[in-house]
Structure formats: C-alpha cells, structure tokens
C-alpha cells in the first residue's frame, strides 16, 4: 500500500519531501503509467507519493522583463495557450500526446522524467532554460543542461522539489522544431530537432542546435556552436562541411522499439542540413 500525501502549502510539501522522501507527482502522466499495475489495483510506486498539482505557489506562468517563469504546476495546456511563451516551445508542446494528457502533464514533470526523448527538453536546451530547485533551506537555480545527466538521472536532492522553469526572453530570426514520431498524436518521439539562430546583416549572431532521443541526454554542443557564431553566411556555406562531422560524432542513437539507430542518425543529420540550408537561403 503506497503512502500518499496531499500537502496544503509548498512549505508543507517541502517538509514531507524531506521527512518522507516522497516523490512529487504533478500531472502523473509519466508516473501513473510507469508504475501501473493490474486493472483495478493501485499503481506500484516504490516510494511514498506527494500530490503537488493543486499548490497555488507553483501554479503560474509569470512574464518578467528578462525571463518567463513557468511554475512547476503549470500544465502543458496552459503553456501551449500562453502567447508570451516562446513559439518554438508552444509548438513542441502542441505536438505532445493529445489534449487530455496536456491538461494534466507539466513542463517540470517532463524535465524531471529526464528522458532523452522528452519533447520539451530539446527545446529548453536550445532556449538556455534554467530550473529552480527548492528545499527548506532555500532555492537554487541551475541550467537544464547541468540538471540532466543521463536517462532518468538528474541533479535533484532528496529534499528538493523542482518549483519553476525559467526561459530567457530572446528573439531569433530562424527557428525550426521538428518531432519525428510514428503518428501525429500520442506518439513518443523517434527523434526531435530544434534549431534557433539570430542572423543580423548576413552574420550569425547566435545559433543553437539540439537533438532529442539520439543519445543518453539531449545532444547540444555549445563548443561547436561557437565555431559557427560570428561567421558570415558566405563563410557558413564554405565551412559547414568541416563542422558537420562534429554532429556526426555527437549524434549516437540506439535501436529500440520505436526506431533504429541508423534511421535516427540519418534523419537528425538531414534536419540539421535542412536547417543550415534555410539559414543560407534566406539571407
């Protein structure tokens, strides 16, 4: 029989988290499936569970001058419908599962599940998102790229709850998000690609390239991006063939029930080529 908690405030939740080591459950769309048991019986959670979706302290989307704060209780539908949230993230969210699931699931939950195929994660990597982790001792913020270290592995203390996701407000001239799945709705990603770039006067001011479901974590290399930043479009055409092998080496997918390594790698690189070509054509 799994112990469940229904805290009334965030502070109470943090106390339960510390004392009982209870796992926070916001939407439940991952946890209820991962630990589901026979029909008519309770899910088989290996730890106590704490419901947090009702906590008003984390149920918000706050637009600040420099960043957007998405509270850990904000649902995917709320994020999808908030016009201030970057379009590329709203696009990714709109392709997740189906409306009924988006009414329950949360961005914070998608991050804490830490699947390399998590659909918000590849976009949040590209957006330089940070996460806020709160314990009774206070809150700390780290980059999402530091937070996730492997499939299901994350830097979350056993007394901490993720309370918010922060996205810097920036503008890009070229954005592309593509999810490749078996069908449009209710399909986990075979792979995903997110490209963001700022091109001013024929020069790359900023570029970010991330790949989902092709490695133990989302793949993004700030080092390789640095080789591209500052290049003119003419130079990009010239040098891309020298930089592309970085991504050929980094994109290392596996075979599983959803797709094959060969397919994932080929399509990821096709999307990269297509995105880079779109930069050279429009400028």
């Amino acid at each position: 029989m799994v112990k469940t908690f229904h805290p009334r405030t965030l502070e109470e939740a943090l106390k339960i988290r510390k004392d009982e080591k209870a796992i926070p459950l916001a939407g439940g769309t991952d946890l209820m499936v991962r630990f589901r048991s026979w029909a008519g019986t309770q899910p088989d959670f290996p730890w106590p569970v704490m419901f947090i979706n009702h906590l008003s302290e984390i149920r918000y989307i706050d637009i600040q001058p420099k960043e957007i704060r998405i509270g850990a209780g904000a649902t995917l539908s709320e994020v999808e419908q908030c016009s201030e949230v970057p379009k590329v993230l709203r696009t990714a969210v709109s392709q997740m599962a189906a409306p009924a699931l988006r009414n329950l699931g949360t961005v914070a939950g998608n991050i804490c599940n830490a699947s390399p195929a998590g659909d918000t994660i590849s976009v949040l990597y590209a957006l330089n998102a940070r996460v806020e982790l709160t314990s009774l001792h206070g809150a700390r913020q780290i980059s999402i790229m530091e937070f996730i270290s492997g499939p299901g592995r994350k830097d979350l203390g056993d007394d901490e709850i993720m309370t918010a996701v922060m996205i810097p407000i920036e503008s890009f001239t070229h954005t592309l998000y593509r999810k490749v799945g078996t069908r449009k709705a209710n399909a986990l990603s075979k792979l995903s690609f997110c490209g963001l770039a700022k091109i001013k006067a024929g020069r790359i001011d900023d570029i970010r390239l991330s790949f989902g479901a092709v490695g133990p974590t989302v793949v993004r290399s700030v080092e390789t991006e640095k080789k591209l930043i500052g290049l003119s479009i003419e130079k990009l055409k010239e040098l891309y063939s020298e930089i592309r092998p970085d991504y050929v080496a980094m994109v290392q997918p596996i075979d599983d029930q959803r797709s094959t390594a060969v397919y994932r790698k080929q399509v990821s690189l096709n999307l990269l080529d297509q995105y880079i070509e779109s930069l050279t054509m429009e400028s």
Partner: protein
Amino acid sequence: MTEIAFVLNNKKISVEAEGATRLLDILREDLGLTAVKEGCGEGECGACSVLKDGLLVNSCMVPIGTVAGCSIETLEGLRNSDEGRCIIDAFADSGAVQCGFCTPGMVMASIALLRVNAHPTIDEIKVGLSGNLCRCTGYDMIIKGVQLASERGEGIW
C-alpha cells in the same frame, strides 16, 4: 484509506480510498459508472476520458488523491443534458458508433471541444479528438457527428 470529497456529475460525494488509486477504478468499481472504459490504461486511447474541472483528462492517469475538491463529469452525468443528447443523437445519425467501446470517450472529447469552440473546423475536430482511438469507423463518421452536433447545437455549449 482517506476520505476524498469531490463533486461527481454535479453531486457532492465522498469516497474512502487510497490516494494513489486511479480515478478510473473508483468510477467503475466503487461507483458503478461503466461508461468510463479502460482501453489501454496508459493514456493513449482516450476510452476512459472524463472532464476534471471542465477539462478533458484520461481517468487512468489521475490518482484519486488529486481529485479532492474537484468537479468530475462523466457520460452518465451528461447523457440527459442538452449537450449530451445533441452529441449522442448526432453520433447516431452520422453512423459514428460501431462497436461503441470508444464512444463514451469520444462524446466527452467532443463536449470538451465544443464548449470552447462551438464551430470547429475539421482540423480542429481532429486535434480535439486526437487522443481518442477508434478501431471501427475510420473516424470519418465521428468527425461528421461532431460537425452535425455543432450545426444543431447552436447556443447550448
């Protein structure tokens, strides 16, 4: 076991349950509301769709502990309402029901859609019903059913 109070089909009720128990099981096993179907049990088929505070959700993914203080609507509560009758008749007239297993979920998804968008396009209907699988109809008749309900149901949503 804890006592969990919520509103079910506009009536206040409370159930004794373990918090992690699925809403689906409470509705079917404890309360006998068998319009709510278990298809896949993992949020992919939509047969267990209900409305939670007016929003479409899969009841197989909702622990009863998160329902405390919420309002839940199932097909049983809607089938005699203007909305319910309009959609059920439109589905019947369009041939949208074959084996019928997906139908309660389809009706719930249609109501959720029409309440926020009384005149959906075909593409909007497809998105609204995208989480509900039907293995009989090929969906065309269901989409026609929603269009017919939208035409007939002016002002009721």
